[in-house]
């Protein structure tokens, strides 16, 4: 089981808002798939998944604010 954490999206940007999940719980994911779209004040960013597996749990829901390093999802 692995936790997908929010990477730094741009310099000095410490948090971002989940705008859209491209996958739902139970979906199979390959490493590198863009799994979630995050929005900062400046732009939107597609975050790639760092692991292959099944999206076990979406931790941060659409609209939630997540800090860099916090969990977005759990992949098994």
């Amino acid at each position: 089981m692995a936790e997908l954490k929010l990477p730094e999206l741009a310099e000095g940007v410490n948090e971002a808002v989940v705008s859209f999940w491209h996958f739902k719980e139970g979906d199979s994911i390959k490493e590198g798939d863009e799994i979630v779209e995050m929005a900062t004040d400046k732009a939107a960013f597609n975050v790639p998944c760092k692991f292959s597996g099944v999206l076990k749990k979406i931790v941060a829901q659409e609209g939630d604010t997540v800090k860099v390093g916090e969990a977005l999802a759990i992949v098994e």
Partner: protein
Amino acid sequence: MKTQNVSSGSRSKRFPYWLRQSVRDNEGFTRTRELISKLGLNTVCQAARCPNIHGCFSVKRCTFLILGKICTRSCRFCAVEKNRLELKAPDKEELLKIKEAVEKLGIENVVITSVTRDDLADKGASHFADCVDILKSIGKGLKIETLVPDFLGDKRSIKKVVSARPDVFSHNLETVPRLYGKVRPEADYNRSLEVLRYAKELDRDITTKSGIMAGLGEFREEIRSVMNDLRKADCDIITIGQYLKPDAGCLDAEEFLEPAEFDKFSEWAKEAGFKKYYCGPFVRSSYTEGIWQS
């Protein structure tokens, strides 16, 4: 023309699909970032919170910010720090470290820009010239672009940089003349045009380049007349990108222009006679540092 309005201040807003960047949290990105940080260098990529940082850093591409990281002006589109009390004297060491970074990263086209330093007698021009000299010692066909401030229009300063013979001499107009008061209150449109015109007059062989941001409330026709003004100043290259608000203290974007509108700008730029033009939502003035390869 159809455009998308921007809801102001809301953190839950969604950006239109064409303003979505991909995160590349890979080895190249990490290596570039670590080297820059180890050398204590400043990049505009970081200072401006550029959304292209993943794409550029992951292929070991960056734009260095010289003369420190504190600016003497207070342009409303820019996130670079402003604090006159913390200004430092130009540091030759900074330039040697940039040389080291360029060599270690294997950069082939380097862009050097700076904060505006109206506090310095030569406005920082000799530091730019020294930087070009030092980087030229690398050889190996390294192409050097200097993206300079307006030097308050001081011709000696412009001459100093041009005499160092960078491959490209850039100065950004940033916006249309009507919006200068709102966007870059301490600058002057005609003074900026004159910087480009004079650089070309000094050296017919130097490539000159300028950039503007779209989405600050300008009319499309105003962009067209900026293009004509730039061509009258014999400017060779233009870049046009979407303005994106870098932090809460900066101006809101008035609109997000659709990609097709940037295509229209490209057509206009071609008609106006620019040798090269780069127009698109994520185009940044130094993002196109690979221009010599295209």
